[in-house]
């Protein structure tokens, strides 16, 4: 496999891959698969439209992880991929996705990842996706992920989406349909700086009886960056839903937080909390009184907040 140091660095940041792991994996670089490997329980193939992956996890598969990272290193390249994941009944697995862009040029580079995830009856899935950009060119690094997820009855999923550094422009769209006694927790962590723009639009339809949905967002806006966070819960049955968005605003950043609760059933219980504020002065003073510089205190507070 011909991996350059820059490739390995990106893979390490987005997927914590230092060498190629055993088990099911697909690494996509500049629109082409460079490694594809299935496991006895997880089959990775090309989808019917030949424009992405079909990842099929056998029913009952336990404690396996599938890695599907994407890297873009070619200047001015814009990648688009449609991936489908089917997590079989009663399986319990982890999907590690993520995208890293290295762009030293003056042309924009980007990746649009369109994921459809079906978590079958009684299955459990953890999904982690980290987005990262680097490079010295003036060309933008653009990531626009779209995730549609369906949780069948009794399925449980936890999705963690992280974007900490280097992505200039992102529009993230997440739509979920949650069945009877199914449960979805979405955790987003975001930091923007410079003149970056980030929009996240999450919509959970809690359709099944006893279903539950949670959206937790922590974000930090620095410099002149702009963030818009929209989180909607639609309760269509006897269900529980909660949205929590916490943001730290710094410098000349702008943060807009728009929680939306729509109850279409009298038994739906939907709640939200939203807060935007700067770092409290007393937090800084407290850490400085333990010997930290002001800069280290800020970094420590932000690192903890986004952990």
């Amino acid at each position, binding site marked *: 496999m011909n991996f350059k140091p820059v490739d390995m660095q990106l893979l390490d940041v987005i997927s914590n891959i230092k060498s190629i792991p055993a088990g099911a994996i697909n690494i996509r670089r500049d629109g082409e698969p460079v490694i594809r490997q299935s496991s006895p329980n997880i089959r990775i193939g090309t989808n019917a439209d030949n424009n992405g992956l079909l990842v099929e996890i056998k029913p009952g598969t336990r404690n396996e992880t599938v890695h599907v990272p994407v890297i873009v290193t070619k200047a001015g390249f814009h990648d688009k991929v449609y991936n489908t994941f089917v997590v079989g009944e009663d399986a319990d697995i982890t999907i590690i996705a993520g995208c890293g862009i290295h762009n030293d040029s003056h042309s924009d580079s980007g990746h649009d990842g369109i994921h459809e995830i079906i978590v079958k009856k009684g299955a459990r899935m953890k999904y982690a996706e980290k987005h990262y950009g680097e490079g010295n060119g003036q060309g933008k690094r653009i990531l626009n992920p779209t995730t549609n997820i369906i949780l069948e009855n009794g399925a449980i999923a936890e999705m963690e989406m992280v974007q900490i550094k280097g992505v200039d422009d992102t529009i993230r769209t997440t739509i979920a349909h949650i069945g009877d006694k199914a449960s979805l927790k979405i955790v987003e962590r975001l930091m923007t700086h410079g003149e970056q723009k980030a929009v996240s639009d999450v919509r959970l339809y809690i359709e099944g009886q006893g279903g539950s949905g949670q959206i937790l967002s*922590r974000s930090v806006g620095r410099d002149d960056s702009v963030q818009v966070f929209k989180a909607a819960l639609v309760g269509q049955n006897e269900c529980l839903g909660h949205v929590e968005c*916490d943001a730290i605003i710094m410098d000349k950043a702008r943060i807009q937080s728009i929680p939306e609760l729509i109850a279409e059933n009298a038994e739906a219980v939907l709640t939200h909390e939203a807060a935007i504020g700067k770092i*409290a002065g*007393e*937090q800084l*003073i*407290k*850490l*400085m*009184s*333990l*010997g*930290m*510089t*002001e800069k280290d205190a800020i970094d*420590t*507070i932000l*690192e*903890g*907040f*986004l*952990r």
Partner: protein
Amino acid sequence: MLKLENVSMTVNNSNGFRREIIRDININFEPGKLYAITGPNGGGKTTLAKVIMGIYQHSAGNIYLNGEDISQLGVTERARRGIAYAFQQPPRFKGLNVSDLIKIAAPGVDGMGLRKKLRDVGLCPEDYLDRDMGPGLSGGEAKRIEIAQVLSRDSVISIFDEPEAGVDLWTVQRLIGLIVQKYQDNPESTAIIITHHENVLPICDEIIVLEEGFIKLQGSSKQIWPLIRDDVQCKMREQCRGEVCYEL
């Protein structure tokens, strides 16, 4: 060890009038001694503590630590020179956990040390090491973790701002015992406790009574305690209906 020389602090209130919060304070804190600062609310006790820590900048006078004039040093520099302050109302941190804060207070502390520091303040390490320092902690829990941080530091001056506030009576006894054990007769360090507690004041070496920003009384506890005992005990009785009857 720590010397305050004619220290005053003035603020401009909302009407534009100047108001002196502490006035012309002269104290020489000596090593190996335990000092109590007491007095009525609004008398300037916490302000004085924050002036020593560098959180508030005093407007007149000088502060010396081991002979060095630290008057113009900020909080970080004073902390690095060995001044520590346990906040009366510790701030909360979403995302940082208890062990993060203890490790910041005592860099290099190992797992055993971390556990011991929590056990010392009456908290079970297994329950608290990974607990978030956010709003989920009760006031008493946050206070004990705050005191554990200051006890973890090898400070030359340690200031405890009302360590008893918000902490249950059983734990107060234990915390004060720890402070006495660590600082009294320790030639390397000095502890200052801001307190109204009738069981704490008489066991300190020196008592300083601050009122309206002035030092009203200052001397050994043998001298001062008899003068203020009736007042302090009377106030305690009103607050607790005479139910505080344990001995340290």
